[in-house]
């Protein structure tokens, strides 16, 4: 319980819930069950895109190719079903394998060249997008299989089935990082590359695993997106970059590697989707959403930074007062993100 109280995303979540309740009372449309469904559907998709970035951040790297892989997988599935009449399941599996392979290619290049993931994935991401555009000549496949659509659009009252996919992916990533040897290797290499290498862990393997699973998750996100949009367009993924970073960062995953908070990512996705929807319900221009995302990233990272500083100071004052140190950390974090400190 105390762990939950100290989580970096808690103040944001509380603020969002409060704002959501206020909006629900003030406006009729916001609280409608269909609107909640739309919010959660967007959140589910955002969460998976965020996971695709989170696994790479965990190894201390970053991927600008999440969107590019998403676009390529979308086109591959669309092409297999539309042109070659593959069974849907086979096409989806092939698409996910392709996504994983793209990620593995990134991982191998980064490990081999010792270059930063930033520049390598900037290049490969553009190449993947280029292939998607080249294959389709920028014309989308409009006949998305009905099974994918019914999964993506399906709901029980306000609960979209896609949220189950997001829950599943979040749980799997969290569990893999915690318990699987490869997951622990990823975190170890991300935490301290030299120490991990000296203890016999393979940085190459960690990079390939992280980027490979990132590609797989980008593929899953692509399938979700395709169903929501009911169209397999090569433009898929061009606007995923900010979301992919916003979700893990707001969720409390450090950019420096070595840690990942998959649950935090899920909650950040809900927060982002709610803000997005609230701005639309309040008739604010959709471009404000983009702006808000940028400022939110900054606020979240700042809050994390301030929180870490405060907790370091708290630790410095001696073990006996560490609890107070922790509390002041989350208080400062709350203030840093522009929110009132939450009663604990």
């Amino acid at each position, binding site marked *: 319980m105390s762990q939950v109280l100290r989580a970096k995303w808690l103040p944001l979540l509380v603020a969002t819930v409060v704002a959501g309740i206020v909006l629900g009372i003030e406006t009729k449309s916001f609280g409608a069950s269909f609107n909640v469904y739309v919010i959660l559907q967007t959140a589910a998709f955002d969460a998976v895109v965020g996971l695709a970035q989170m696994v790479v951040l965990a190894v201390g790297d970053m991927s600008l190719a999440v969107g590019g892989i998403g676009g390529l997988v979308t086109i591959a599935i669309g092409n297999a079903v539309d042109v070659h009449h593959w069974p849907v399941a086979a096409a989806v599996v092939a698409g996910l394998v392709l996504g994983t392979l793209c990620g593995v290619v990134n991982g191998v290049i980064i490990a081999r060249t010792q*270059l930063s993931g*930033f520049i390598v994935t900037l290049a490969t991401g553009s190449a993947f*997008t280029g292939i998607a555009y080249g294959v*389709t000549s920028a014309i989308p496949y409009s006949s998305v299989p009905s099974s994918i659509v019914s999964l993506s659009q399906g709901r029980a009252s306000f609960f979209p089935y896609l949220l189950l996919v997001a829950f599943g992916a979040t749980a799997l990533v969290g569990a893999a990082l915690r318990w699987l040897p490869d997951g622990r290797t990823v975190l170890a290499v991300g935490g301290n590359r030299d120490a991990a290498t000296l203890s016999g862990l393979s940085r190459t393997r960690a990079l390939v695993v992280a980027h490979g699973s990132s590609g797989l998750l980008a593929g899953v996100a692509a399938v979700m997106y395709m169903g929501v949009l009911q169209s397999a367009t090569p433009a898929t993924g061009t606007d995923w970059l900010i979301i992919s970073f916003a979700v893990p960062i707001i969720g409390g995953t450090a950019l420096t590697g070595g840690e990942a908070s998959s649950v935090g990512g899920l909650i950040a996705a809900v927060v982002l989707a709610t803000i997005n929807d609230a701005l639309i319900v309040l008739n604010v*221009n959709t471009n404000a959403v983009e*702006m808000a*995302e940028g400022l939110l990233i900054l606020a979240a990272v700042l809050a994390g930074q301030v929180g870490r500083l405060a907790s370091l100071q708290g630790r410095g004052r001696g073990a006996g007062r560490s609890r107070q140190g922790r509390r002041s950390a989350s208080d400062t974090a709350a203030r840093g993100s522009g929110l009132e400190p939450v009663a604990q």
Partner: protein
Amino acid sequence: MKSTTRELPTTREPGGGPPGRDGPGVASVRRGIVGWLVSGQSSVVGLVLLTVVTWTIFGTVGSGFLTSFNLYSIGQLAARDAVLGMAQAILVVMARMNLAVGSVGAICVSLLGYMLVDAHIALPLAILVIVVAGVLASLLMGVVELKTGLSSFIVTLAFLSAYGGGALLLTRNANYEITSSVLGRLGSGTLVSAAVCPLVAVAVVCGVVVWLVYNKTAIGWKMLAVGANERAARASGVNTPRVLLAGYALSGLLCAVAALMEASYELNVNASLGTNWLLPSFIAVVLGGVALAGGDITVAGILLAALFYDSLQSGLTILNVPSYWLDLAEGLVLLAAVVADQMRRRRQSRVRHERRQRLTVAGGSASPA
């Protein structure tokens, strides 16, 4: 030809070579053909060769590549890409990066459109305002980086969406039809011959200014020092915050110039300009031979890289490669450039290492005798 490479000894040698301790870096390696090939000069010579080869191939295979019309449009695009590359390089030199080049450009072009079309402000004043706006927008990112201690990646990522969204929001996605004839002549007139766009001169002037900053001014040398080893620079009395802010300001200024250049030949602009600036800006930097780890710059390399890159794009278009495949070409060029650059740097540090070892051995055997 501005082909001087300035490089400070950096402790972050890619490829695991020992940290350079021998003063002016590669100068000592520049003897002998191997030393010359692996030095910074080779990126310039290599780019000249690459461009000549590209022109020869496309000139013989594709029809119309070497016409003055086509060379004109290559120059037009390459000029903007070169300025973008320099805007990026200035932060890369300080071991930072600027993801928001396009969004700063979007702010500048929105302001330009608003002032010229809606507010009927005179062109010189409008240009002055957008240059100031570009500098201020970029400075703000520098201030945030300094005040928060966050990495430039995350700060400029946040401002990428904040500025981009803000520009679209404030202009309400408006399209501005710029009618200024002066601007039109800058972007679509001719200079000296029918094959040269006046924008090429703008890019060359920017290049000369940037070259002067790094080669003739103290602040430029300090930027290189901060990029090579920030802690060492601070320890030797460099006012790092001021140097960083100067770099951000210069980068913003060049973003404003690039926005002005694109507006001058597009003439119909809106706030979504700049959304695809990121990749060309890094291609010019990496292909031009600027180390991503910071600490060195090759202005001539950036200019030539932009020329080569846009020649390649134009050549592919002339060979009737559908424009949809050009993204792939862009990605592959960048990938090839980073990998080749990495290999070159590794070989460079190996040569330097071997040379030093040879010197040590020679010195060691000489002293007992």
